[in-house]
């Protein structure tokens, strides 16, 4: 798994290509694909954005569990607050905002499982591709050399289920690639790979 020598990067190209042996990882990586979904959900229309070739990696199935739990906790909190305000303190108006919040959260919960299956990323030769969304499809290509840093975050609930969120930061704030629900191992593996690859393809800003 090496960069093929017919890349247009000239060998004289300073330190960026002196070590041409670090590879962009391609498919078949065990750590990335353990316990993940196995098919990306797409819109039915023929006019959708095509997935293209290459291997898509997906996120952990536990992501949806964590999301369900945290949304349920949030719902419980809202309902409890509404009940206290509405019944004990006789504030009838509170049912309106509480109702709106509950309906929105429930709607989110309904689309969440399908949404989670639509998230995917692909490690191509020179860039990382991230996609998400069904109704609103979005695909972002980030060249490895553009990455300024890679962030891994996990909250207490995430830690309990062994998942983490990985964020790519480029010089553009709008890039906004955040891959949620990776397994701990996948996140760390991905981070190390990305940093290795970014190091060999470092470019200017």
């Amino acid at each position: 798994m090496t960069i093929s020598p017919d890349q247009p990067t000239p060998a004289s190209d300073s330190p960026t290509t002196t070590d041409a042996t670090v590879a962009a990882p391609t498919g078949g990586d065990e750590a990335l694909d353990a316990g993940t979904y196995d098919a990306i959900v797409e819109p039915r229309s023929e006019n959708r954005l095509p997935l293209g070739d290459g291997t898509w990696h997906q996120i952990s199935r536990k992501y949806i569990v964590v999301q369900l739990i945290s949304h349920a906790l949030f719902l419980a909190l809202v309902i409890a607050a509404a009940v206290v305000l509405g019944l004990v303190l006789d504030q009838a108006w509170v049912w309106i905002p509480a109702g709106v919040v509950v309906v929105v959260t429930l709607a989110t919960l309904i689309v969440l499982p399908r949404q989670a299956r639509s998230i995917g990323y692909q490690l191509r030769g020179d860039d990382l591709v991230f996609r998400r969304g069904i109704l609103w499809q979005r695909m972002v290509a980030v060249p490895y050399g553009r990455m300024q840093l890679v962030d891994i975050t996990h909250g207490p609930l995430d830690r309990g289920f062994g998942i983490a969120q990985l964020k790519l930061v480029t010089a553009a704030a709008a890039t906004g690639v955040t891959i949620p629900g990776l397994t701990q191992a996948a996140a760390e593996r991905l981070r190390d790979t990305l940093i290795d690859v970014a190091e060999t393809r470092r470019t200017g800003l």
Partner: protein
Amino acid sequence: MSTPETPAAPTPAAAAVAEVRSPLSDGEWHRLHPLTPLMKGGLFLVVVIGIVVTNLRDRLIAVFLPGMADEYEYAGDPVDYIIANDLLILAALVVLGVLVVLLAIFWLSWRFHTFRITGDDVEVRSGVLFRTHRRAPLDRVQGVNLTRPMIARILGMAKLEVVGAGLDANVKLEYLSTPNAEAVRGDILRLASGRQLAEARRETTGSARGRAAAVVSAGITGLIEGEEGADDHPASVVHLPPGRLIGAHLMSGSTIWLLLLVVGVVIGSVIGTPWLLFSIVPALIGFGAYWFRQITRSLRYSIAPTPAGVRITFGLFTTITETLPPGRIHAVEIAQPLLWRGLGWFRIRVNRLSGRAATDSSSQQFSDVLPVGTRADVDRVLRLILPGLPGDALPVVLERGILGPVADDPYTNTPRRARGLRPLSWRRNGFLLTPDALLLRSGVLRRALVVLPLARLQSIRLSQGPVDRALDVANITGHTVLGQVSGSLGILDRAAAVTLWTDAAAAVTAASSRDHSHRWGTTPAEPTAIDVPPAHPAAIDVPPAQPAAIDVPATEPVAIVAPPAEGSP
């Protein structure tokens, strides 16, 4: 007025000693101009004096205009107390003591504020109790700004700002005497460019004496013309008459808002209470102040090529001279608002790393590269800021890009079936991908063309909502550093957009790998290597050795015709 910045504690100099010309950038620690604390603390002093004067107002009136003083007796007034108890000497001593302490603080802060310029970084140390040490690597320098506020200009001082890549990432050397600031700017840019030193040395010989003489006259000439030293002042390629500038501001969108406001107020005062008419006055004052600020900050505009990049000067009262090395511009927008069309005026804006916080009000100022100009001006400015653009590509940008769809133009436009989403501009709304740049054309009322240099593009997004899907279209966004230029273009044919997204992603990699502008002065070691795209075509014939070669997207077809953009303008 000799060079006031004296060497501080001599530290082992970095390798840069022999390379530079100014005594201030020899790799040792130096101090700033001795008047610096006064300039920075001056505001504080003014406030203190203001408070004192306000509190003693009645007494001052009594002293200078005895007839107007009322006979009120100030019980416990400190001045009365001092006079009554014969403490005048003590009071004078206290005032003197405060002044001495202030001066000592100023002196200490000046003494502890040092900077150093080595071959690799610019460093600034400051603070007496809380020390700060900021170091900026030179290969990430985004530009150097020379700012001369009114008062500093009278005193012959200037503020030098080394623009870094990040929010609030600038290294400020405030203040230096103007000739020193100019010399340091030249040195920083030369070191950052990585230009060969023999070259640098050749052009420096014999200028030291001339500079010493220039110091003397700088204060005087600075007062009169406020311009750079003659040797450092290349001619502007664009002449911007003040009349055009004022006209351009009067014909901007804010004028329409003002007119709408006036109409609204008049109607309101006719229908409702006439008192509403008086609200026009503050509105007019507000707009007047806004225009005044906008116009004065664009006056004295000039743009000129220098070996270290494009030099842009603007500002009537606070004159800012920024130097933009090649390859520091992340997006360019050429736009023509509706009202300017009859006059044939255009504006050029860029996205760049200004090293300032996002809330900084002057960021807009830094994004206007050409506040208003004719087509010829646009042509000249584009040649400066996009040196990588081949000469024959300019018509693509100008005639076809800005002035709208022409027959057989190379842009891929919004398909006819989706004209409902772009009812006016669908014929114009389109893109063009060249090996060096992505061009996005849009707008009919406000014509705009965005040029995104591929070597600077951070990432590319392809997106599609439900309505887009029904019409078989998609949207493209090129992400650049934060700025006023947006790199997004909606409603393109889906297949074309997908192809563009794939091709652009590959082209970005190719363009950035042949980009050397972070050290723009170094010529690439073997320029010929670029002209030989597949270095080892034979390697492809060895299948088992390169299994991953199949996974590499087709980056090869991207024509590598243009030499890297490091060429000087």
